[in-house]
């Protein structure tokens, strides 16, 4: 049985899917087909009934999606975290900050080049939230809103030696690091919650609600927990399983 699941670029870039999909097929017989798109586009696909479920990380948008009746419910599965990546010589001294907002303030203060996703994705919204929390209105030549997916934005940052907010998984899997390095991470403000939302079968009778439910059961199972928490790159654990039973 096939099931279409829309996910965001940052999830796809993490490489976790390659571990989970075969296990899902084995455990449930469901062949999950991933559609890797922007957060907005993922929700739009769900809204139109073109996918059976979505797995995204943008809480406000998700809640609105469910409230509008497009999804049946929102089920938190796991989280990873964001980190701040930048040039090795760290001209803005981001490495010395203790809070994410502080790190952002350093960057703004130094007017060091900063690449923003600029695409209304979960990552972008998180970044905007951090600026707001830091009390900074990011404008000027140093602030570059690129409007691209996670990997493409990282490529851009690497090309211009700029700072960027990235999810840890995408960063670790990223092959074009150039002169960039991880400078800041660990602040709980940077946690990145992924949630699973089945598309509402009342709206779209053709969606595979039963399979979507079985997938949800599997995703919240111990088997999933083991795989998710066991997934490491370069010795770092990437995701923390936090589905409630």
């Amino acid at each position, binding site marked *: 049985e096939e099931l279409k699941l829309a996910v965001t670029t940052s999830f796809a870039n993490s490489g976790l899917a390659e571990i989970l999909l075969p296990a899902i097929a084995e455990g449930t017989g469901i062949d999950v087909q991933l559609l890797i798109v922007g957060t907005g586009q993922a929700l739009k696909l769900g809204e139109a*009934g073109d996918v059976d479920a979505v797995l995204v990380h943008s809480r406000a948008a998700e809640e609105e999606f469910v409230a509008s009746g497009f999804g049946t419910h929102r089920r938190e599965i796991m989280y990873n975290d964001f980190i701040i990546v930048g040039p090795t010589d760290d001209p803005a001294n981001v490495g010395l900050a203790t809070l994410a907002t502080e790190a952002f303030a350093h960057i703004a203060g130094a007017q060091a080049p900063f690449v923003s996703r600029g695409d209304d994705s979960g990552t972008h919204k998180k970044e905007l939230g951090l600026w707001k929390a830091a009390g900074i209105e990011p404008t000027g030549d140093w602030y570059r809103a690129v409007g691209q997916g996670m990997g493409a934005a990282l*490529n851009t940052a690497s090309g211009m030696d700029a700072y960027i907010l990235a999810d840890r998984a995408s960063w670790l899997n990223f092959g074009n690091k150039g002169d960039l390095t991880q400078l800041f991470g660990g602040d709980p403000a940077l946690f990145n919650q992924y949630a699973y939302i089945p598309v509402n079968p009342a709206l779209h009778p*053709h969606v595979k609600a039963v399979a979507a439910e079985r997938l949800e059961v599997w995703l919240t199972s111990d088997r999933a927990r083991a795989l998710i928490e066991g997934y490491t790159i370069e010795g770092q654990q990437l995701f923390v399983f936090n589905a409630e039973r």
Partner: protein
Amino acid sequence: MNDILTGMAEALRLILTLDPTLIEISLRSLEVTVSATIIASLISLPLGAWLAINRFRARRFVIAFLNALMGLPPVVVGLLVYVLLSRSGPLGVLGLLFTTSAMIIAQVIIITPIIASISHQAIRELWADYHDLLISLNTTRWQRIKALLWDGRRALLTASLAGFGRAIGEVGAIMIVGGNIDHATRVLTTAIALETGKGNFALALALGFILIALAVVVNLALHLLSKTERSSLW
């Protein structure tokens, strides 16, 4: 720079080891693009001929519009096809979204104007030669189109190959309507885009080189078969 060399080495390795994933997505690329090229040619070669032999008021506008359609951004085509094929769209019941059929439809839309425009140009010149004769022989419109398509077949092959080239390298539209689903709708170009996003430039370039090699082989094969360059024009 290094990425380019590594990419070439990797391309060689993938080909020499007959990498099964590579073969799968290459075959799918060919399947989609060859289908799209054939369908688009069936539409646009007669259309190009029809435009060449008919004089009508809006002619100049139609041709400019056709030329402009060559510039249809793939993403827009992808969106349009998506909107039509989406479950909530008019053709949603067909369930074609995220299948190779949807990708073929998108590519047909993209390359039809290209093939029509180039073939129109070629047939216009042939029609200038044949005009008086075919009028004098009292041919029907359809007979004229047939004669022009047949006698101009070599130039038309170039037109179709231009369409093939455009389609095989296309990614924006098929990404949206195909979804780049592993083992279902992933083709060379969407795989390249995926690897690029991961920053795996060497692998992305390797796939790119393989794609070019594939296109060279197809072009060379068709030129040899059709003897275009041994033309009796020469």
